[in-house]
């Protein structure tokens, strides 16, 4: 357990999250944007798990903290379920837009501009 320190997990999460953010901001393909969003979600998941594992209470205290320890892991399951649903809806929307306009370039999707 002592081989991988917490900061490494956090560093990897930060890298994944930044990659995801940059991808969301600069890419024009909505599928790639979705992948980047997934990346960001997974970066968050990773940090959840890392914190859950290294939680000081878990390290020091006994069985009474087991439920708090489970909370971080449960949140990851929850995020994954929501992400799956989000992808299903999002891909559906992308398909609908493609059928409507025959293209999915995000820069052309600016009908909201005032």
């Amino acid at each position: 357990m002592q081989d991988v320190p917490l900061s490494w997990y956090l560093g990897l999460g930060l890298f994944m999250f930044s990659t995801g953010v940059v991808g969301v901001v600069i890419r024009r393909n909505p599928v790639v944007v979705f992948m980047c969003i997934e990346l960001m979600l997974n970066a968050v998941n990773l940090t959840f798990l890392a914190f859950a594992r290294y939680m000081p209470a878990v390290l020091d205290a006994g069985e009474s903290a087991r439920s708090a320890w489970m909370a971080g892991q449960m949140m990851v399951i929850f995020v994954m379920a929501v992400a799956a649903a989000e992808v299903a809806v999002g891909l559906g929307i992308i398909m609908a837009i493609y059928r409507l306009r025959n293209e999915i370039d995000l820069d052309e999707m600016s009908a909201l501009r005032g």
Partner: protein
Amino acid sequence: MNGNPFDLIWYVLGLPLAGFLVQALFGGAVIRALGPAAGRRVMGALAVLPIVAAFGLGVSLVYNLIQLDPSSRNQVVTLFDWIRIPSLWVPFELRVDPLSMTMVLIITGVGALIHLYATGYMAEESDYARFFTYLNLFIAFMLILVLGNNLLMLFIGWEGVGLCSYLLIGFWYKDLANSRAGNKAFIVNRIGDVGLVIAMFLLVSLIASQGPSFVFSEGRFLSYDVLLSQSAINLYVANPLLTTVIALCLFVGACGKSAQFPLYLWLPDAMAGPTPVSALIHAATMVTAGVFLLNRLHPIFEASPVAGAVVAMIGAFTAAFAALIAFGQTDIKKVLAYSTVSQLGFMFIACGAGAYWAGMFHVTTHAFFKALLFLGAGAVIHAMAHEQDMRRYGKLLKYLPITGATMLVGWVAIAGVPPFAGFWSKEAILGAGLGNHYAEAANQNWGMVAGWIGLGVAALTAMYMTRLTWLTFFGPKEQWREIPLVDNGHGHDHAHAAHHDHAGHGGHAHEDHGPDEHNFFYTDAEVAARAEVPAHHHELDQTHTPHEVPISMWFPLVVLAILSLGGGYVLYNGHLFEHWLYPDGLALLSKEAVEGHPAGIPLLQLSIGAALLGIIAGLAVYWRGLPAKEGWDLSRWSPFRRAAANQFGYDRAMVEAGVDGGGFLANFAWKGIDVLFIDGIVNGLAAAAARLGGLLRTFQTGYVRSYALVTLVGVVALLGYLLIVAQRAGAMP
């Protein structure tokens, strides 16, 4: 309230109202069903009968009232609550007292005679039922005005008679000039009404400031028994400034309705209406409503000598001004209209000088002789093929013996020759003006000044009435014989051309003829239909022979002549009228202050002298008929007479100031205030919002990623802020 004999007063009010409804709902149908002649006779009778019955009831009520003790001669009869909200209670209540019953007798008595006359005068009128609808409605409103026991009911009547006046002035509305005259009367009266309304507000605020329990009023702030109670009178005396303002506002209202100086100018134009209307509304009843108002609320005026002085001086000025204008008029009805304005001025002299009873006395006698003169003038006009210009008359006494004789009675009555009615009332007014010491302001007894002016005007009155009488009934020749006979096809055009060429009628040329013949406002179908109706009367030309009017028209003349002859003496004798109206004297003024007989001034001789002087001067000028200086050639008129014919430019100046000045004000309000200021603010705000929006719009690119970038920047900034805060708080190492 059962068994109270004064409950009958509701029938006095209800009968004309019922007559109005009958005329309005069934008049046209009856005339159509029975044919013009019989139908008009039936509807005419139905119009006259309610007024006669109301007069009979009025007489019986006066008889009941006389039986009562003088101090209890103010019976209030309540029908229902009109307005009842917390702190304001206005019942629909009628007041039976000597003042209101005097007016009721004048309105129904003279009104019945004039209704009777009108059945003859309007016999050829196609809109017969409409005329009597308005006339009966007028009587009903006038009765509400005088009988109501609070100022709001007076106001209902006040506006109602104004409405009827408007409708009747513009009765022949197809002639645009008549409609304009009606509008003018209505609009000028609005100015006075504003004064009356302001006075009511001030009265309510004055009385309401004393709390709801003030003299058992329970919110009946505008009822006369509250306004005239001793506590209210003490209140007027305690607030002299506010009382003066209230009195002056009331007088503004009276000025509008009673055609006093700044606002008189609607009355001469009101002669556009049928002559019975001029007699009833614009001489005998409605225009005296202002005098009635001053009498009704006399304690307010008594408490303010300044207001009294203003009333007396306005009255005196109006009397003199209108009398001078009358000299420049050639239209017989216009002369009578200005003489009405002038006589109303006399009534206000009396009220201003504190002799309220004398004002009402003159209202009464004036109703007799002025109605007589107007009806006589109507008979003359009727006999002269609707020609109203006195320069076409002359030697008519031979053709119209009854009309002529009765009008001679009216002439001497208004001139103030004893023992005719006008002498007694004018004498009472002048005595009050010269003898009283009430209307004093700035160390000057204005009542006395007004009295002296009135004396001079009395002489002028006698003179211009002599002019009217002589040009109409006497003189060396029958002037209309000089109108050449022309063939029928052009006869009409000629008459009108002559009329317009010589339009010396003070600005507007109204003719009291029937429906307009100008082919101006009729559809082609109407014109074609009229050509088939045989002409009722031919044009006035040298072949014309005047005929005496029918009995329905001369009977009222005779009755009014008898009243003009003896009415004044009967009422004046032994202070009958004064004690009837004011049995206990006035509320505030002592007997000494309103002593009616000036010491050291031979009033009797002076007033008789003034009357005789005026008559003699008139005879001297007009004995030989129309002087060349007053003929058709206006350029030969003296400058004074030309100026008088144009009302010394006052009417034109007022109308121009009102219309052009109003136009200028409206333009300024439009372009200066509305467009520049109001619209500037509103549009400026909108434009600023639009510019701000345009600025913000540039941030809305529509690109998802730019929104994501903004969100990112925001999140980073928020996190950074939290970091700094946490560090400050020492939570972080």
